């Protein structure tokens, strides 16, 4: 019976696969597949919950299968079931079912009907993988799926400017969360010398023993997890992405950003609770982040004049409180809070268009000139300052630009001398030198060998930063991302665990996806003449097939679990030593920037307002 929990992954996976092959004109079949998939999941979930509760609800820990095994390396899929899983499973399946039934009618005749349900099922698959994950590696697979499906749903109206811009923005914040998770994975690898399952975190003596020897690593891992949770749950300083994510059809905003997606940060904190429960400083920090967020978000919610952003900030504020509850160790209380918040905000978002008729009617009958609010009792100057700060969302959105994206851009611009051809002239020869050095590693000064991996990884990182900020050539940007992977491979090869199979595993997906991507770019260029990276071009309007293949190539190149590169990336980390923090950081940043650069290429070339205006094209501001 316990083995049954695999079903909760298989059902959405199969449903998703089926939904991909249904012809897009068959609305009824598409929605039937989606609704029955989730209904089946609901039946299974209810049945299993009863069974589990009946059987004294002990923890289930299921090591499913090894994806790849080598000496001292074992990447295995692992599932886990406890009451946190139970609650998230039930909230997830219930809301997703309601939303799919709802959207069945709501989305009727909308172009992209099929795409909508595909993405919902994909999202739901990712959600379940996260919720059932028994170790960080498994969880990370789901985490990546959530990120991509979020991007696709925010950019659902892909022919308009704002949805695409905001989708890229949200995806970037998600990637910051991913760095945290990748580093946490790497560090815990070294802490435990194996994949650490969540079940073992429950073993107090084990955790305690490890941590007492490695206090610093313990703290850093906790911090990484916290960054990840904070980004995903839109806590300070990342809060401003949540309202901006409300670009898709209302039900998708309701389920993603009103309820399921935004509580994933809380989930990962609860999942790792036993790891940091004895790190008092971390608990205070989590509580502090929650408290600060709830105050700031409440103030911001109070000045919002659009209904969806108001709900978004109100929800962020409640999640802040949930962070406090989790930090305090009130698990049950936090779980109830998560469920209540998810249900309330979902429903509020769904009925949000009714707010006009409702409030206008209410005002018509009960109009009183605006009453005094609590802020009116503050000194005027304080009141105005608070108001203005809240109106500007505490500059959170511009801070992201100021401290993150603008410096990156400035840095990228410094590399403007790089062109497609100069890359061949400069970067590739240097790479060859690197390989020569590698071949003669034993003859080199050990000190140099020590530094070389870091230097090479840094070169890779620099290249991908240029890829991210490239404004003219699509193929240059694409090439730089590929090269980045090669530099990382080179850097890692200097570590003594050099294993050619691992490197091949890693690069095979890169080469495959890279080639497919190039073919896509050339094909499009042949048909369209000029491509550039300076603005969105919306070529998906005329070339949906190339767009789809190119998206898959992007995912492959970004290490998404569809090619062996995914595994390779994890392997790469297992080869980075505990004391090579900078190497790890560079590699982690590289992976993050890869994803960003690729999504940016995809968005600029294929999404946004179409560059040809012979058909209806929306204003940029709409």
């Amino acid at each position, binding site marked *: 019976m316990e083995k049954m929990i695999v079903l909760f992954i298989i059902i959405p996976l199969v449903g998703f696969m089926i939904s991909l092959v249904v012809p897009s004109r068959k609305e009824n079949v598409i929605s039937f597949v989606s609704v029955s998939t989730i209904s089946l999941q609901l039946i299974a979930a209810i049945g299993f919950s009863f069974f589990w509760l009946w059987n004294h609800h002990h923890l289930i820990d299921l090591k499913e299968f090894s994806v790849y095994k080598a000496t001292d390396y074992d990447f295995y899929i692992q599932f886990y079931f406890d009451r946190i899983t139970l609650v998230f499973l039930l909230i997830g399946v*219930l809301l997703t079912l309601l939303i799919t*039934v*709802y*959207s*069945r*009618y*709501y*989305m009727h*005749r909308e172009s992209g009907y099929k795409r909508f349900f595909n993405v919902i099922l994909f999202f739901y698959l990712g959600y379940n993988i996260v919720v059932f994950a028994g170790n960080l590696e498994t969880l990370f697979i789901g985490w990546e799926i959530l990120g991509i499906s979020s991007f696709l749903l925010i950019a*659902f109206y892909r022919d308009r400017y704002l*949805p695409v811009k905001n989708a890229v923005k949200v995806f970037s914040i998600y990637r910051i969360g991913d760095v945290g998770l990748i580093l946490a994975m790497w560090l815990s690898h070294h802490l435990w010398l194996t994949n650490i399952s969540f079940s073992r975190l429950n073993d107090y003596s084990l955790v305690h023993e490890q941590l007492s020897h490695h206090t610093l690593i313990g703290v850093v891992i906790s911090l990484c997890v916290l960054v990840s949770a904070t980004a995903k749950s839109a806590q300070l300083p990342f809060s401003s992405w949540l309202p*901006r994510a409300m670009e898709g059809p209302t039900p998708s905003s309701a389920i993603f950003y009103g309820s399921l997606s935004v509580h994933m940060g809380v989930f990962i904190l609860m999942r790792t609770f036993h790891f940091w429960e004895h790190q008092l400083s971390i608990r205070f920090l989590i509580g502090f982040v929650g408290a600060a967020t709830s105050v700031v978000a*409440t103030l911001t919610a*109070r*000045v*919002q*004049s*659009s209904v969806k*952003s*108001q709900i*978004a900030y109100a929800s962020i*504020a409640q999640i802040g*409180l949930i962070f406090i509850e989790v930090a305090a160790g009130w698990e049950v209380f936090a779980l*109830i809070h998560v469920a*209540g*918040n998810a249900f*309330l905000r*979902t*429903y509020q978002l*769904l*009925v949000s*268009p*009714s*707010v*006009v*008729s*409702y409030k*206008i009617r209410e*005002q*018509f*009958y*009960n*109009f009183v000139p*605006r009453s005094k*609010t609590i802020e009116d009792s503050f000194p*005027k*100057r304080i009141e*105005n300052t608070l*108001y203005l*700060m*809240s*109106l*500007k969302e505490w500059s959170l*959105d511009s801070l992201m630009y100021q401290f993150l994206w603008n410096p990156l851009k400035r840095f990228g611009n410094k590399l403007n001398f790089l062109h497609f051809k100069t890359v061949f002239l400069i970067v590739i020869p240097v790479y060859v030198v690197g390989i020569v050095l590698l071949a003669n590693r034993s003859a080199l000064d050990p000190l140099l060998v020590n530094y070389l991996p870091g230097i090479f990884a840094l070169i890779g990182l620099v290249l991908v930063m240029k890829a991210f900020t490239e404004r003219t050539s699509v193929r240059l940007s694409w090439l730089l991302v590929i090269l980045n992977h090669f530099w990382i491979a080179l850097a890692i090869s200097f570590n003594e665990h050099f294993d050619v199979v691992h490197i091949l595993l890693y690069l095979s997906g890169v080469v495959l996806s890279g080639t497919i991507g190039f073919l896509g770019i050339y094909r499009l260029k042949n048909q369209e003449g000029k491509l550039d990276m300076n603005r969105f071009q919306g070529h998906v309007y005329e070339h949906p097939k190339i767009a789809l293949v190119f998206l898959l190539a992007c995912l492959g190149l970004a290490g998404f679990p569809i090619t062996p590169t995914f595994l390779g990336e994890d392997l790469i980390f297992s080869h980075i030593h505990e004391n090579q923090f900078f190497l790890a950081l560079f590699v982690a940043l590289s992976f993050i920037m890869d994803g960003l650069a690729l999504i940016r290429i995809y968005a600029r070339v294929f999404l946004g307002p179409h560059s040809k205006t*012979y058909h*209806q*094209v929306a204003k*940029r*501001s*709409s």
Partner: protein
Amino acid sequence: MESKGNSFDKQHVLQELRHYLPAQAPLKDFVHHNTLHAFQGLNFFEALLESSTIFGYKTALSLKEFRTLFQQRKISRRILERIIIDKKGDSQALIWSNKVHHAQYEETQCPRIGALRNTWKEAYKIDLDSMVHPVLFRILCSYLDQGISIWNFPGEKKSLLDALRELEKNSFTSFFRTQRARALLLDESVTLELLLGLLVGDESLFEQYIFDQQFEHPGWSGMVSTIETNPSTLLDSRNCSLADLIFFECLLEIDVLDNHFGEIWAPISEKMISRPTALFAPVAKTELSDVLQIWQEAYEWTFYDQVLAGISSAKPSDEKIDKSFQAFFCIDDRECSIRRYVEATDERAETVGTPGHFNLDFYFQPEHGKFHTKVCPMPVQPKFLIKETNKASKLKTDVHFNQKTHGLLVGWVLTHTFGFWSALRLFLSVFRPSDSPSAVSAAKHMDKNSILSYENQAENDREGDLQIGYTIPEMTDRLEGLLRSTGIVDHFAPLVYFVGHGASSVNNTHYAGYDCGACSGRPGSVNARVISAIANNPEVRRLLATRGIVIPETTQFCGALHDTSKDEILFYDIEVLDSSHRIAHEKNVATFVKALDLNAQERSRRFMNIDSSMEASKVHQLVKKRTVSLFEPRPELNHATNAICVIGRRELTKAISLDRRSFLNSYDYRIDLDGKLLLGILNAAAPVCGGINLEYYFSRVDNQKLGAGTKLPHNVMGLIGVANGIDGDLRTGLPNQMIEVHDPIRMFIVVEHFPSAVLETIQRNASTYEWFKNEWLKLVVRHPESGAFYVFSDGKFNHYTGFETTVPCLDDVREIPTLGAENLPIYSIKTA
């Protein structure tokens, strides 16, 4: 070429700008109007070309769409050929026919608007809008907000600039990132010209710059301009102006530029690559625009021709049958089919069409209402007020809209408790949709059992400058006008119904557009009740008799409300009917109920997820359910497919099916030979029907720029408009869900009268005449004696020879629902 003189006249530019910006009112007062009203002084096709060249709108279907319609035989080959010959002459026909069918044209739009400001991107490499818009929209929306935010804009009663200054002066933080912009705001002597001097430089480009700037966000600018012109459209009024908006936007631009380049950047006129074409420079005709015009006219006449064939198959007779009842409906196209079913169900019933305010002009104030609401056509300025008292029902509330749920601590308690109630509500609203406080229902407009103060009690019975209720002569005037204009002046049936209409929906931000257009986007229930009460009044009848209209004592009037989405009917004041009428009424109710079932079934033809072949009453239940379903973006299709307006006796249209596409105004030329009443009808019909028709037309051909796009992602901004996401521009026009089945053709007005009389009549009112002269509406006259048709063009009526002589025949109107979801041809209906 660069005149540096004093060429910038701010007031003039603002006035021009206001003229071209969208004139859409806040959501609660949404009324259909011609989207391109600014171009109405031009001929229709010239306007299409100009607006498209200047503003980049798509103003017609694309060539590809037209050609597909032709292949689908929705455009007739014969008509197309004739139009080509008419326009281009016999000798050129072949060449043009080839162009129409096969030539390839560049349809890409390179509008003039935006060309000047594009210099920021091209020469300065800066994306100004992406940094200015989010801040600007957010501030503007917070300032105008009608009740979404909990903590409102400090000093929102001041003018926009004053409120901003106050806030800027009195806080530790700033709207701006740089000092100069801040100083410019705080210094009250700074003029707009100064700011434009910094940004633009060359004064002769100021106007173009402002147009470019404001047309980057026409939604917000249009809203500000509308509110400025008509402040009472907001319940919580604001003192905003377009001038303030432009001033502040210029400041934000200066701020962004200063922040990016320091204070040393050069104005745009010094860096622009070449001087852009002036916005309103003459627009040259293109071959493409000719081809599109030919297609458009062929498309329209393919349909018009059928309509005329259908009408000519009618044989109006003077036979006066013994009527069981008469029912006055609104001219609204949605009432087109219900009238057919009422008459089919009870052959002795007669239906009449007239604008749904029933010739009444007043404000209505429901009990406990803090405001007056206008329930007559938008242009009318009423001097009367009718108040509701003795209301029984109370306003229901829903905690999900309560602002407290957004508070921190209350929210904390509520999510733990109430959150689970939300789950249940969500479950029920998905699986068992039912009425809720969030729904809009036509019946809620006025309490069924309340008392209306329609009778003026004394001379000083007034409120402000409004007189409460009408005096007897005033009532008589209105009733007389109504009866005469519809031609119903004798042979009254024992029971006469006045049926107003309204709509019900939920989760519908455009709800006001679903109600009666003649009642300013409100349900017509109050009007129907009041006009019935007036007609039942013995004193009114006595006075009316002296004016030549005798209503027999055996005739009684009854008001009613037709809910066009639910297809339900509600009768008012049945207790005033005497017992024999009461019995007759009961019988008529059965007729209405049956007709409504059939009507709902016919409507369901267009709803893909209802099987229309089921029993009518079952289909009706499903149709009703749509109006309370949160997930239903199309509770009804509103005016979609509207195309015709017939002004004449019912006999002309009684035996044909016009597929819910026609406005029907009853009118009898025989009592109006000089066209006086006709003028009154056309004065109302032209802007109302024309406004509806053209808003549908333009929202359909360019749903992205002239329409609101799909409504599914819409977010409510400040209760006044909708936008996509949280930092988009307000969307004007109609959402895709309202127009997707609409065929973009102009309204075809058919009048039954003598051509000479009509020609003389329409010229009497310049603004009405403009609609016809410039062909924004197509006008055709049916000669009442010969039955021949005369089409109005180039200022005169020309005899029309049709192509179709017969139309297909239907044995029974009840077959219609089974005929699929597409537009139907005009059918003649066999009468038993």
